[in-house]
């Protein structure tokens, strides 16, 4: 009796010891904490989506009872949502097919454009690297629809739609065919260009950290540039390519504004436009949730392929530290040509929209440049005229400044939280590489990306009606923003941590550095630029997010909700001005961070 008690105690002791020693390793603590945290924060929304797709709301019950003579009442379980949606060729399968095509093209375009750019910046002696590199990320900083708008303004012509004469026609008299202006072509292209900076950041980051010897070894073996690219460079940046595809594909699948701007007028409908149509009607909301599940499934599938690929036997982690002796490819005479082409393209996609924002905010009557005025910026009194109630000019408008500060504060807090979590997740996942828990955490951290913002906002609206202390608070916005943008940071955190060998940290362990000190003094500085991009990306995204927050806060709280207020009031000058403000602020933040820390969204990969 006594003996068995003793062994029992001993066993308990052993167990306690095992638990204690497991948790004495920081990476273990982190991985467990994040696994639990992410499970709660992502499984709950997922559960909500599932539940909403399988139960009928009041209006859905009415619909099914009317159409199918069922006797459903609110809250009943049903598979009718799945049945109705999945059996519909026109409202589901066709848009799905369109979405898939658009996302595939957009991914290819993003990789071609961003990858080529990354290659030019990291591997050749092209001129004005720093300038190009910082301008190239503008399209991502700006909301995607700005590019769609620019596209329309440039290519619209008298042969298409309402016959608005675009820039191209007015300058050259050239009329491009309708499919260039509206439809899958502009949708894919605009999304591709919008996300090309992603490709640039991810691929460029790997190229930067990739040992140049790997390519030189092939050069010495008399391989052509093209063969090296194909056989060495591309396979090695494959994980980055996959990450890019994963992000661009899922983002494009979920993107709404661009297909509405340049898709719908050409009768090109995708899943997200269809989702919004169903979601915005209480009688079909359940079907929208079924669609959300489809979107999520595609994301999970991509994620699975990604994990399978990077988890394969050929490990890519032997990418050793930076090679000090990168020899740039000499572009020679091509340098000037490529630089000019690049400059023109960058001007069109990055600078031109900003200029047009500025101009549009300064003309009284749209399209009439003789009515140039600064009153929408500088008027100290109410602007008046048709802009009734718009208040004073932008620079003296208290509401705009309040909302702007609200957005900046929210974005700062969100990015600080998210960026730090991203690094910690990256650290934990990298250290526990290969374990199930690590796979779980990195998968879960990506999950919020797959839930459309619209649905995400609605889910947290429901959460806030249960946890009333959260209602309308900054905390709620912070939580929602933090979860939604975690994928960005955890991706960049994981990528950069994966590139650091464990020995670097062990070297610090040996000299007795504490864990925080190792993080702050050793790991962080080494991968500073990519970590800081983990902070900047959520900041940028948060600054211009609308649909995620619109259900959760007042119209004056954030600059984007206020922007939609001015949009609705049709004070185009003010909305354009506010857009300009958002872009400029993000640029200033990027620039300041660059000056202060030497890092920036683009810095990790190019510049200098």
């Amino acid at each position, binding site marked *: 009796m006594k003996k068995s008690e003793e062994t029992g105690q001993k066993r308990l002791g052993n167990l306690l010891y095992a638990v204690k020693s497991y948790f004495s390793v920081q990476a273990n603590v982190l991985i467990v904490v994040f696994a639990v945290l992410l499970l709660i924060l992502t499984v709950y929304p997922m559960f909500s989506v599932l539940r909403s797709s399988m139960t009928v709301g*009041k209006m859905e019950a009415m619909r099914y009872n009317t159409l199918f003579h069922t006797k459903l009442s609110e809250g009943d379980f049903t598979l009718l949502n799945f049945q109705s949606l999945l059996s519909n060729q026109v409202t589901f399968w066709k848009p799905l097919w369109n979405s898939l095509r658009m996302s595939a093209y957009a991914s290819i375009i993003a990789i071609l454009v961003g990858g080529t750019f990354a290659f030019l910046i990291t591997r050749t002696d092209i001129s004005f690297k720093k300038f190009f590199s910082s301008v190239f990320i503008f399209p991502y900083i700006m909301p995607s629809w700005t590019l769609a708008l620019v596209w329309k303004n440039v290519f619209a012509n008298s042969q298409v739609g309402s016959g608005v004469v675009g820039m191209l026609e007015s300058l050259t008299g050239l009329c491009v065919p309708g499919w260039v202006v509206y439809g899958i072509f502009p949708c894919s292209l605009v999304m591709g260009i919008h996300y090309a900076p992603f490709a640039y950041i991810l691929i460029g980051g790997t190229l930067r950290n990739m040992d140049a010897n790997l390519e030189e070894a092939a050069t010495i073996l008399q391989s052509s540039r093209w063969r090296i690219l194909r056989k060495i460079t591309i396979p090695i940046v494959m994980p980055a390519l996959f990450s890019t595809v994963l992000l661009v594909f899922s983002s494009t699948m979920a993107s709404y504004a661009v297909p*509405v701007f340049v898709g719908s007028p050409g009768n090109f409908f995708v899943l997200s436009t269809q989702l919004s149509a169903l979601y915005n009607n209480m009688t079909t909301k359940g079907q929208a949730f079924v669609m959300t599940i489809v979107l999520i499934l595609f994301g999970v599938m991509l994620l699975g392929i990604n994990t399978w690929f990077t988890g394969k036997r050929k490990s890519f982690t032997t990418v050793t530290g930076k090679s000090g002796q990168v020899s740039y490819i000499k572009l020679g005479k091509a340098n000037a040509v490529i630089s000019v082409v690049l400059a023109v393209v960058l001007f069109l996609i990055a600078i031109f929209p900003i200029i047009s924002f500025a101009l549009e905010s300064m003309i009284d009557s749209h399209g009439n440049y003789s009515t140039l005025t600064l009153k929408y910026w500088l008027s100290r009194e109410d602007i008046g005229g048709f802009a009734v109630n718009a208040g004073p000019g932008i620079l003296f408008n208290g509401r705009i400044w309040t909302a702007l500060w609200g957005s900046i504060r929210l974005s700062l807090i969100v990015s600080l939280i998210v960026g730090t979590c991203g690094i910690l997740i990256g650290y934990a996942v990298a250290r526990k590489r290969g374990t199930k828990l690590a796979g779980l955490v990195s998968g879960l951290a990506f999950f919020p990306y797959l839930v459309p913002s619209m649905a995400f906002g609605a889910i947290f609206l429901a959460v806030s009606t249960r946890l009333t202390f959260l209602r309308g608070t900054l905390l709620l916005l912070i939580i929602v923003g933090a979860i939604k943008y975690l994928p960005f940071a955890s991706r960049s955190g994981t990528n950069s941590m994966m590139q650091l060998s464990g020995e670097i940290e062990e070297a610090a362990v040996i000299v007795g550095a504490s864990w925080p000190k190792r993080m702050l003094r050793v790991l962080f500085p080494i991968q500073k630029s990519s970590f800081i991009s983990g902070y900047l990306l959520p900041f940028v995204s948060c600054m211009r997010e609308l649909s995620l927050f619109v259900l959760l806060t007042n119209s004056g709280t954030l600059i984007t909700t206020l922007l939609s*207020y001015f949009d609705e009031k049709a004070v185009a000058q003010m909305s354009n001005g506010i857009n300009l403000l958002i872009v400029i602020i993000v640029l200033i933040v990027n620039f300041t961070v660059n000056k202060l820390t030497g890092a920036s969204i683009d810095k990790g990969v190019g510049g200098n």
Partner: protein
Amino acid sequence: MKKAAALLLALVMCMSILLPVSALAETDVQKAIAEAAKMSWDELLAKAKEEIGDNKFMIYSNTSQIEENTFTEKTGIAFEDRLPTDSEVYEVLTQEVGNGVYGADVYLLQDCFMLTNLAIASGWLENYMPEEYKDVINEEDQNPLAAIYLNRVFIYNDGGDKEAKPYKNVWQFTEPEFKGTEFKNPMTEKSSLNFLISMTSEKWQAKLAEAYKNYYGKEWVSTGEFQNISYEWIYKFLMNCSFVAKDSTIAKDIAEGAKGSVGLFVFSKLRSVDATNLTVCANDGIEGFAGLMYPIYAQVAANAKYPYTACLYINYLLSEEGYGKIWGSKMGTYSVNNNVTVSENAKTYGDQPLSFWKDCLVFEDPAHVQNVYFEALDLINEWCASKK
């Protein structure tokens, strides 16, 4: 680490606890509304001031035009607002009032179908109809109370030629020759959807049949493909039109577009573009109909914190002064108060009094929408998605 664990614990606990909080009991709001309906402005103002003190009340509004300054200037009572879109507001209602959580006092919202079948049927919103306006507001606008009407009308670019009058019949918009009428997708815009559904009533079938005869020179005969003539128009129109995301974009497109380009969009957007070349089809005397008209309803939340204040605000919207200060000078916005007339400024854009529009615009028709909603919705959704 400890902090993270604590946070985690807190979260777990929070998620598992339901905390329904209700403000005033339902009956209290109803009682207050009933009382308020009988009060004069001054009595109501006094009651509202007493009730709200230094607090602010909340408005959820479908339109951003609600005035911040003038109501507060007049009464000294401040408010905050949120602008959920026409469909978001029902999500918000479900989550908030549906769960007994206070969100707003006043709701300004559209879509008769959702309002009746969801919000009112669930008892989430209460109707306030001040007795002093009983005689100047048409009965059909009294319950649920509409505050204002907005319209979407066919407007075209005349290229400077005001006499050409190219659009004489609504069937023109279904002809390939006139392809590309810009229109907001009815699947995301509730007023567009209800417009199409309302159009299937017998009244508009008759109007469309007459217009058909005048345009094609023959009686409309069913091919069996469509339930009635309205559906044929809807189908052909949907196939022929071009979906554009925002009313302001349509306005801009048409204003800058080629001569003859046409759109069906919110009249009030005319103020944000150079309208010199824009003509409202209705003023050319188009056959069939010239667009649509829909109400913005004003309702008090069943769990309002400040029901008297909510009533006071709605009362203000109905008054000539309130309408005048908020919408007075704008075109395309009409008070339900029959004493209110269209402003001179609006007239210069071709605006007309509500009575004029009654004949030529398809008004949102709650009774008819109620009857055919689901069948029509499914058809329209499918047609929209199958546009080529």
